[in-house]
């Protein structure tokens, strides 16, 4: 983060969104698999 971060913040929105997508997508996959397994406690 540079010292003029407040000025460059709008330009970074795309990067921030991409960064969150980068880590969020695999995490969402893991959570989906987890929920599928966890429901077996009530149905299995």
């Amino acid at each position, binding site marked *: 983060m540079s010292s003029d971060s407040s000025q460059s913040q709008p330009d970074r929105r795309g990067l921030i969104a991409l960064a969150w997508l980068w880590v969020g997508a695999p*995490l969402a996959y893991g959570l989906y698999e987890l929920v599928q397994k966890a429901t077996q*406690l009530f149905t299995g």
Partner: protein
Amino acid sequence: MPPAALSVHLSIGQAYAWSVFKPPLESALGLSGTQSALPFQLGIVMLGLSAAFGGTLVERNGPRWAMTVALVCFSSGFLLSALGAATEQYWLIVLGYGFVGGIGLGIGYISPVSTLIKWFPDRPGMATGIAIMGFGGGALIASPWSAQMLESFGSDSSGIALAFLVHGLSYCVFMLLGVMLVRVPRTEKPVEGAPAALQGPQVSANNAIRTPQFWCLWVVLCMNVTAGIGILEKAAPMITDFFADTSAPVSATAAAGFVALLSAANMAGRIGWSSTSDLIGRKNMYRVYLGVGASMYGLLALFGDSSKTLFVLSALVILSFYGGGFATVPAYLKDLFGTYQVGAIHGRLLTAWSLAGVLGPLIVNWIADRQEEAGRHGSSLYGLSFVIMIGLLVVGFIANELVRPVHPRHHIPAPINQEAVDVQRQQPESA
């Protein structure tokens, strides 16, 4: 910064999904269960050692250096393992995944901690909670992903080698985001109200381990982790045994669902309870972990076999406290020792995890085996373990009560304090 930290922790959290590789390795290379666990065990030992001894280097060289080391070690550990599997040289897998990869685990685990605290000085619990939640989340991703890969490539040695190779390359690319994005905040223009200089007491890592506060927190972490691992490690057989003699026994499928639910509680506790500690204070948060945790174990011991709902809820609360304990401790360290070398101090504290990782499973498994030999079955296999866990949590509770502010004689002198500020000011360019 949080996605950068998450990219590292989500990767190294794969370690908890090592069990996926165990059965294929055992059949492909003719290994016993004990032998196939070696890479994981060595990895956890190396995690503790590299975090303890590498913490000062991490503080000195900055988070980008640390994340690069973690990336290189963790990925090349997989590549060495791929070579080992392809040539059927198991020692290469132990060396690669366990030793080299284990160094990546330790350095990667502590790499974002002090930087996150500097970015979010007013909410350190939430900041470190996000990263350390990623370590829990890593196994959620890797477990189904690795299993699907082995299904596609085959479970023979060449299939395992290919799976290791893909893991190594994928994690290298995935962690690269963290290396590229990580930044240390400038102290001149603080983010979200961060102080312009290091404020409050600042204690070096070498001085910190000479204080009673460090060792009280060491005991607190060790006891909390031991109590959580006690359930986590034996969750599936435990719930099956508890309700084996009832009218509603638990099937193997349902037990797997219980294990998954515990993983979710572990992960949710990391972000949820750690963020809560920003509101109620670190000491109070650990009072909850240890005090309420002991009560939950009491409920399990007394009424656990009378209600499945009570059993599941109590175990979930205990596991959420287990995760919360991991995630809250960096902020607790920051409160006591300042941000100066908090990453290095955290690294040294993680040796408590190494001991707890042995102690928790040992207590529960050893007692269950002895009870079984004595002809007991069902919930009575675990009663004594639960009583011991209550005792350990009480010891942790007392240790937490003994934590006081650090004596000023351990603080770094003002000129060095200023020097530390100057070093931090220079870091954004180099980091």
